[in-house]
């Protein structure tokens, strides 16, 4: 049993899952936003980054790790809601290009703004959990206490989202608000508030990912969430942009795939091979691997 845990394959799986849950979290945020407003939030990663920087700034004033995490997530929640109110609301009913351009512009502002305020160098939040891998009989198990926290955090967020979607009317209402806002309104759904809530939740979930990243090996820079956005988008798109669980599973798969490539192929392939997966996956199932077939209406 322990031998299996220290094997090369299991090592890759551990490392891959640890990384993949982060893609899954960003993918999950994208799915929530997509489901509630039919907008692809290109600034999802940058919003998470910004919220986490806010939390970090407070940490430097002596708050502890958990407080920082809570503040970052709260900042993400507020930022997401505010973004929907101010930037996104004027975009409803407008051509797709408008929302793409506005969100790309917001991405630019957040990243440049973060550099302006906090500088471009990497920052870390030191977590109370060790980053060093477990050892057994001189062999490494590629899991660390922090990696376990990371996976646990991601699973917790997913469970909360799934719970909200499944056991409250929220998921249904979000979908109704996105598909037929007028009808939803007639049915007594407070559509505006719901859309704001969707963005706020998504952004908070993204902030969890950014906090975790800032406690990892690389730390957080104003731009390194780009990577997570791209792979998170790939995860969400492969999963179908409609399926929260699909996004998470696809994220984990992408993380594992990258790890196997790093281990068994030229490591530089890891950063572009997911794009190939995306292209192939979308060619086979344009509506996403985990989404129901949609037909074209004439």
């Amino acid at each position, binding site marked *: 049993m322990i031998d299996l845990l220290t094997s090369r394959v299991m090592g890759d799986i551990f490392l891959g899952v640890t990384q993949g849950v982060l893609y899954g979290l960003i993918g999950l945020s994208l799915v929530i936003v997509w489901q509630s407003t039919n907008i692809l939030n290109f600034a999802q990663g940058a919003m998470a980054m910004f919220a986490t920087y806010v939390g970090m700034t407070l940490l430097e004033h002596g708050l502890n790790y958990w407080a920082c995490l809570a503040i970052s997530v709260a900042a993400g929640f507020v930022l997401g809601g505010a973004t929907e109110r101010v930037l996104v609301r004027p975009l409803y009913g407008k051509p797709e290009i408008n929302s793409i351009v506005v969100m790309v512009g917001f991405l630019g502002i957040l990243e440049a*703004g973060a550099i302006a305020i906090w500088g471009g160098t990497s920052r870390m939040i030191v977590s109370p959990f060790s980053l060093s891998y477990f050892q057994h009989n001189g062999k490494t198990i590629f899991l660390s206490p922090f990696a376990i926290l990371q996976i646990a955090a991601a699973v917790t967020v997913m469970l909360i989202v799934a719970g909200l979607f499944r056991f409250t009317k929220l998921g249904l209402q979000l979908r109704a608000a996105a598909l037929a806002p007028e009808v939803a309104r007639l049915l007594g759904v407070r559509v505006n508030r719901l859309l704001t809530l969707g963005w706020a939740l998504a952004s908070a979930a993204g902030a969890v990912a950014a906090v975790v990243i800032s406690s990892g090996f690389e730390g957080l820079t104003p731009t390194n969430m780009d990577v997570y956005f791209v792979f998170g988008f790939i995860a969400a798109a492969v999963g179908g942009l409609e399926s929260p669980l699909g996004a998470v599973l696809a994220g984990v798969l992408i993380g594992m795939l990258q790890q196997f490539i790093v281990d068994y192929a030229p490591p530089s392939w890891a950063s572009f091979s997911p794009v190939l997966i995306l292209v192939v996956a979308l060619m086979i199932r344009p509506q996403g691997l985990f989404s129901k077939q949609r037909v074209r209406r004439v």
Partner: protein
Amino acid sequence: MVSIKQFIANRPTSARALATLVATIALLGLAIIVDPLNDTYLATASIMAIAIVGLSLLIGLSGQVSIGNSGFMAIGAFTTAIWAQHHAHFPLLGSMALSVAVSTVAGIVLGLPSTRLRGPYLAGMTLAFAFAIPPFIQSLGTFAGGSGGLYFPTLQTPAWFASAIGEKDNPLAANNTWGAAIAIVVAAVAFFFMANFFHSRSGRAMRLVRDNDVAAELVGVNVARTRVLAFAISAAFAGLAGSLLAIIQSSVLPQTFGVALSIELLSLLVLGGLGTLGGAMIAGLIAAYSDSIVSRINSWTGIDPVSNLGGSLKGIIFGLILIATMLLAPSGLAGLGHRISRFVRSRVAQKKALSVSETP
């Protein structure tokens, strides 16, 4: 006696060729007059305008949003650079043609999924492409220079050109002017072709697909092929721009062609005006002069240019402009100019009508 209007209506291509020729001569004259620094700005403006007008075709005409054209620029630039590395003498036109060919193929490959993807899926996929290209080029190893990029012999100014512009003794100035001249001529040719295409039936096919793909299919437009064609042409223009950039800078770095460049292209295009030739030209000029405009702003406001804020000011301004344009004036500067001229004309017409009605 044929009026100008009739000439334009009956011989549109000739009219466009004539306009292109006049503009080219004027710009070449300008390149010769201005100092070497402004020559590099003119070159940059021409190069960016080529890439932006290609993006304008894709987004404005065919309605497909790409955040991946920096990837095609990279492919064009590295094709030229790799070619220059392995051949002591390389013909300018030949390497540009090769870059265009390679990036067109890349455009077709990326365009194929576009036949099945819509809106945000497509935009996200092109973004992923832009993201993947620099590491892909780095992974090619020494062949493409790795992460250190490629350097190759500087552009050789022909002796006749240097003496013609009276800069025989000043090779640096002659070089800059020569570079600007090449970029201007290539951009002029590219814009001429694009102008033709915008007014052609194929160009209309793209607008049909953008507006209503079902109706487009019913009038015989092959929607899938049209979408891919838009990607191919857009990639060809981006590749040409990349090739020119490599030629003029005599070096290429993979990192210069990251997602940030794609975002810059998109911002400039939206600012200039989607789907118009004039908008792309304005956008090219803004691209070239944006750095000096920003440093001007820095000195006005007293912001230290090497501070965090000074360094990211351009990004903030671009982002703000992008959002403001989309929320307030979605047709960009070109559209704004159009609207103002229409407003003025309607005012003039009103005045005329008033004075006419007052006379009797």
